[in-house]
């Protein structure tokens, strides 16, 4: 192979040799400082642990109500899906679809695909169709907006705090844990290492 350990920066196309990294090290492009890849110790174990935790919290966060409201004896509570439904019923089909995709569909797909890749690897097998799944995960990443959604919930609560009594639901705490675990899972999911397995698998 002429280009076995040659690589091109994905941001400025500079050709360079792949450095050999210390555990925990980061390879950066010398011209534009883009992060090329990282060495993450035990990345499969770590990513699997975080992803399992995140998947568990994701289910709780979607089943239970996020927040409830009480004013003058009238109470109301909503879950994430209930909120999507409410905005759909108000005739905002595009907004409902956008919220559904960015806060339910994409995070759910992301977590299941990561588990689909990580569980077989942990058991010493190669997941089938790894290349297409890695590509899919890469294109989904920017559309996963759980973090932004939670900030939105907090802003909404501040707006309502003057008007009514707020009852935080189980899902609110689960979402809090979920954003931490999700961030950790994505950070320890080492795409570079997994792509190199695709090469070996062929």
């Amino acid at each position, binding site marked *: 192979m002429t280009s076995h350990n040659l690589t091109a920066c994905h941001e*400025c196309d500079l*050709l360079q040799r792949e450095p050999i990294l210390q555990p925990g090290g980061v390879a950066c492009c010398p011209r534009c400082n883009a992060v090329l890849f990282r060495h993450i110790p035990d990345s499969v174990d770590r990513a699997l642990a975080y992803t399992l935790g995140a998947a568990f919290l994701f289910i709780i966060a979607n089943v239970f109500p996020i927040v409830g*409201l009480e004013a003058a004896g009238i109470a109301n509570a909503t879950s994430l899906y209930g909120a999507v439904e409410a905005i759909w019923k108000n005739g905002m089909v595009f*907004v409902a679809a956008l919220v559904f995709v960015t806060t339910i569909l994409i995070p759910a797909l992301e977590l299941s695909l990561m588990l689909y890749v990580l569980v077989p690897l942990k058991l010493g097998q190669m997941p089938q169709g790894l290349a297409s799944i890695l590509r899919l995960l890469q294109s989904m990443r920017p559309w996963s907006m759980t973090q*932004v959604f939670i900030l939105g919930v907090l802003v909404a609560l501040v707006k309502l705090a003057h008007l009514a009594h707020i009852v935080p639901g189980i899902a609110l705490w689960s979402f809090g844990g979920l954003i931490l675990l999700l961030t950790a899972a994505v950070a320890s999911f080492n795409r570079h290492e997994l792509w190199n397995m695709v090469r070996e698998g062929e």
Partner: protein
Amino acid sequence: MNDSNVTASQLGLCACHGCGSLSRLVAGSHDMCCRRCGAALHLRKPDSIARTWAFLIAAYILYVPANVLPMMRTGSLFGAQADTIMSGVVYLWHSGSWHIALVVFIASIVVPLAKMFSLTYLLISVQLGWTHRSLERTKLYRILEFVGPWSMLDVFVVMILVALVQLKSLASIQPGPAVAAFGGVVVLTMFAAMAFDPRLLWEPKERHHV
């Protein structure tokens, strides 16, 4: 030849957009696929400049209704009220939550505008073939990619308010048409940032050196 300044494309190599592995381009052949992951290979993102402009101009146009039309209508015992993005920020500011007002102001007004202006600047700089400040412009692009989703904040706020505040005759909140327009702005600017190829920022400099 200065070894530290050769790009893959100058040597006829093409990095895959998906897995990053290098493939040698065969002259005159189209529709080549990455030998590792099978993705279609392009030296640069196809029609990057035209597509970024298209998404960006559409985002500028939608930005107007997103700010002029109401985000939500509040109906209560004390009467009805319609709020735009800006009047929502002003309300938060006056009700004493200035820090929340600041968060909403940055996420819903500063970030989308800064994003659209920065992309315009990057596109013009590529089209004029600037050779200076490539590093700074690449950093600007990286920030754009990072902040993209955060402008969805106001859409989520309105959605939660609409779902929660349905207290029969006491108070109710309906979403306004600006929510859809604003969601559209966020999606379009994200597509615009994805269509832009940061490698174009370095190309004029390379042509200069060769």
